[in-house]
């Protein structure tokens, strides 16, 4: 595993001066991942904050080859790029010893929802690439609409906390589980606050042959109604409350990478976010209980699988 000093000494492929919000979780995630390999990296990005915030002509934040084509197809686009790489290598149109890595980034909307089919197809076909979902829990680029990753109870512009309905009524989809069901060689959940863990996972993923996947929680001050300076802290709380467990599945074996010494109640994470303000009201106590139950059950399930073949 690389030291912080080694990592910071590497060439920055994602330049500053982009237009993502202050406190956005995406840039540190992207930087850390791109620094996790010494090979050249070709990147594709689904439509969303990362794409819009980094590619406004005539500027680009990408010091590495990059393509955005549409919203729902990052996995299909990178499939094409990676296939071209194999085709051209086979025909000696690229140096055979040249090793290039392929990374697709998509938001939760572009991955859990509209891009799920393309992702599933690309995983099944077995292209060699890393898919990274930066999961900020809503369609942020278009103004905080709910996605299937939005947590239960959250207020979004399409699941508003109204007089009758109190925010999103459904639990989130467990995308990481869905990806694992594809029997990919490597899949993991990570968080930007734990840079060592994230770096380690990206390194593993990028040195694996075949499709790999990282689901990374990505705090969004605008959508979560949090202070920009508290982003990394809020990611840490998501992990310490076990809302966002850090775990990986490597060749079928599940490993929980971090078990908090003291599992914090989920309210600790909820109460710092304005999107959950309404569920703090006494009459909505049942929502917090329901949320906590779900987190507990999922965490127990995960612990029961620790070290096991899944």
């Amino acid at each position, binding site marked *: 595993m690389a030291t912080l000093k080694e990592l910071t000494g590497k060439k920055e492929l994602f330049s500053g001066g982009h237009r993502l919000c202050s406190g956005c979780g995406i840039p540190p995630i992207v930087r850390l991942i791109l620094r996790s390999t010494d090979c*050249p990296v*070709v990147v*594709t990005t689904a439509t969303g904050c990362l*794409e*819009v915030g980094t*590619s*406004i*002509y*005539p500027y*680009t934040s*990408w*010091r*590495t*080859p*990059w*393509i*955005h*084509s*549409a919203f*729902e*197809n990052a*996995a*299909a*686009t*990178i*499939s*094409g*790029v*990676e*296939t*071209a*790489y*194999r*085709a*051209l290598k*086979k*025909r000696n*149109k*690229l140096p055979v010893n040249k090793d*290039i890595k392929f990374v697709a980034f998509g938001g939760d909307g572009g991955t859990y929802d509209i891009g799920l*089919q*393309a992702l*599933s*197809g*690309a995983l*099944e*076909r077995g292209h060699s690439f890393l898919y990274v979902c930066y999961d900020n829990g809503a369609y942020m680029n278009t103004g905080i609409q709910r996605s299937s990753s939005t947590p239960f109870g959250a207020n979004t512009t399409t699941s508003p906390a109204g007089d009758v309905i109190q925010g999103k009524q459904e639990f989130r989809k467990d995308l990481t589980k869905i990806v694992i069901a594809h029997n990919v060689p490597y899949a993991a959940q990570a968080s930007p606050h734990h840079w060592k863990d994230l770096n380690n996972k990206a390194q593993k993923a990028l040195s694996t042959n075949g499709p790999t996947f990282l689901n990374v929680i990505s705090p969004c001050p605008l959508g979560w109604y949090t202070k920009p300076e508290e982003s990394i802290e809020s990611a840490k709380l998501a992990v310490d409350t076990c809302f966002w467990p850090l775990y990986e599945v490597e060749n079928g074996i599940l490993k929980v990478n971090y078990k908090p010494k003291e599992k914090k109640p989920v309210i600790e994470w909820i109460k710092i976010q304005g999107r959950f303000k309404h569920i703090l009201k006494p009459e909505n106590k049942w929502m917090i209980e329901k949320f906590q139950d779900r987190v507990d059950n999922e965490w127990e399930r995960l612990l029961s699988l620790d070290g096991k073949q899944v």
Partner: protein
Amino acid sequence: MAVETKHKCNVGLTGNSAVAYAMKQINPDVVAAYPITPSTTVMEEFSSYVADGAVDTELVTVESEHSAMSACIGAAAAGARVMTATSSQGLALMWEMLYIAAGMRLPIVMACVNRALSAPLNIHCDHSDSMGARDSGWIQLYSETVQEAYDNIIQAVRIAEHEDVLLPVMVCLDGFITSHSIENLCLIDNDKVKGFVGEYKPNQPSLLDVEHPATYGAVALPDSYIEARRQQSEAMKLAKDVITDVGKAFEKVSGRSYGLMEKYRMDDAEVAMVILSSAAGTSKVAVDEMRKRGAKAGLIKPRVFRPFPYLEIGEALKNIKAVAVLDRADSYSSFGGPLFTEIRSGLYEFDKRPKIIGRVFGLGGRDYGVHDALAVFEELLRIKDTGKVDKLFDYITVRE
């Protein structure tokens, strides 16, 4: 099915086999496709070529047409020569990505085996699929016969990749009528095809050129978007001459000549029909019959619909007395099909212009026979004689 050819001519192939065979001879770097009737057998046969090692193309059997075109875009941006095939709903599902392929100026070649769009579901031929994509920025070539489909695919590669063009090309052939009928055709030697299409050298820095990182698919705000579109529009304009030149070069290797359109018995014609693809063949029989009856009938079969050769077609029609434009697609303007409205608009450039009518025919594979074409010519003769158009726009081959 593997095609082995000892003789170059009199090879009996279906349209789809001929397209697949042309793809085999081109041996593209990457093909990404998804099955749909009636284009499916193109991909099935090409898959056999891959499985048998007749080509060393990388085949991506994607999970949808949207992903097919997305993968084609990714591969083309990575510097690969890329091809695909689809029909109908598949083309409709690709719609978003068609514009992106053209906007990124990626020279992808696609066979579009024309089929009607749902609803109601129908697997037979009409042109509503490709006509729906007419504004997507793709060059469109329409093929009358198996021979033309084969020849167009080979020429499409050179047209798309020409440095003045760099646009994707759609080669259309009629579903079932051409795609599944066996016709005799002449194949070109592998070496000649290889020489004709040449080695692909992308004009733009590819995504795999890691020493020269390029950004594809940026955001363009109002300060730059229209310039990108303007360049695309200019490329489409330039494509006209490139298509003509490639047609001439193709004649040298094949002996068959191709231009923007085919004119049939137009020299002294007084009444004429304009019609695309396989139905032009049927209509030529009607032209001959009308000539036998003493009427000066002629026909124009546009080969190129995008870019639209409005001046050339207008020039060919301006001295005709009455013209019927037959569309195998409606555009629901209640005014006429796409070919009709564009030809009528193109004729506005000319002071002298014919009386003109638009007729929609053959939707969803409805038969269009010589008698249908003859009836249209009879109507044109009445218009020529009376100078009066009763119905500007109407349907034929329909039960009312």
